[in-house]
């Protein structure tokens, strides 16, 4: 899933390298509109509905955080 998440992120913001170990939000790589687009793409591609309550920056600030969010919403 990690590769898939990195691919989705790279398609969303091709100007950034999402394999870097940085906070995507603090680094300005993702803004609130990107989160909305990211959630929609994850839902379409992975068939999981992300709870609105989970759409907060800390759940999308790294690849690991995004994977945790996806897995939590699959349960």
């Amino acid at each position, binding site marked *: 899933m990690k590769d898939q998440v990195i691919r989705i992120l790279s398609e969303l913001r091709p100007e950034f390298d999402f394999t870097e170990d940085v906070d995507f939000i603090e680094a300005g790589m993702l803004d609130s509109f990107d989160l909305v687009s990211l959630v929609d793409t994850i839902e379409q591609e992975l068939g999981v509905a992300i709870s*609105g*309550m989970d*759409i907060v*920056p800390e759940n999308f600030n790294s690849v690991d955080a995004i994977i945790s969010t996806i897995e939590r919403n699959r349960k």
Partner: protein
Amino acid sequence: MLASYKNKTISAVMSVLPKHEVDFMDEMANYAFSESQMKKLKKVMGFGTRRVAKPGETVSEYAILGIRKMIDDGVFTEKEVGAIIVTTTSPDHFIPPVSNIIQGAFDFDTDTICIDISQGCCGFTVGLSYAFMTLDSLKGKKVLLVTGDMLSAKVSIYDRASRPITGDAVSISVVENTSTPNEVYCAMKNNGKSAFSVYIPAGGTKVPITPETTAMKEDEFGNKRGLNHLVMQGDLVFNFIINDTPVMMEELLQFAQEDIRNVDYFICHQSSVFTLKKLAQRLEVPQEKMPNDIVPLYGNSSSATIPVTLCQHFEEMFAEKEKLKVMFAAFGTGLSLGAALMELPKFHYCKFIDYPHQS
């Protein structure tokens, strides 16, 4: 606040929309998005066409046009009107109140109650609560609930967060007592600690408009705004909506001792397609029960979106039933929340008209 009122109903709705239509795709160059981001957001957020008032057009002018049409169509007479309640955040002037301007445009009685309430997106549900309260003092007379805003002019053309969804509209809902037993339930909540998460810094007494407040500055996301423009902390507002609105709706259902599955429709304020999709998921309500197409069709017209939704979907909603259990729910500036749960009969007047701009 939770309250219930006996034998109240909505008997007619009119929505007045600017004829002037603006397409998101025609404004793409104003926003700091890539083309692929724009196309994605068009679908996810519901950026589409929005109805936009011409400069100088006012809430009272739209309301007067709509009320005159309703009188001409025989919906009510001037003598039957006991109160005018206006909810807006974009009044024509500081003074006089919009409700008084509307009263003065007709031969309404001089004892007609005129109330202006400064409410944005929650204006319909808050105004409905005040209408129900007022009706007990009006005997047989009706309340005209006027809800709407002319906020397009207050949103920067370079604000990608708010501009693509903001529309203008004014609705008139006729609220009255009914002899048919019909208990209605209302909720209102406020969180003034977050009051400045949606605001217009200049133009009031705190910061008067000056050449300095008109100058535009660019923020970290590439939005350009002046202090005269609306600014919204979208992420904070979204989290407020998703966390607090369902709790209020569930409290209202519990207060009314009603099961959520018995509600036929949830007519909610429409701020964006994404927000209502997430709200429906959070409540585990099928999206078909929560219409979600007003933003792409007309834009978010603040306190008018709920009556605009009624006008848009009235025929299909009542295709098979003469009365429906409906919950209205709204959220927005304040930050405020409001809801009303009621049995809505298939009334005979629910329509749109376009406002004919002076060229």
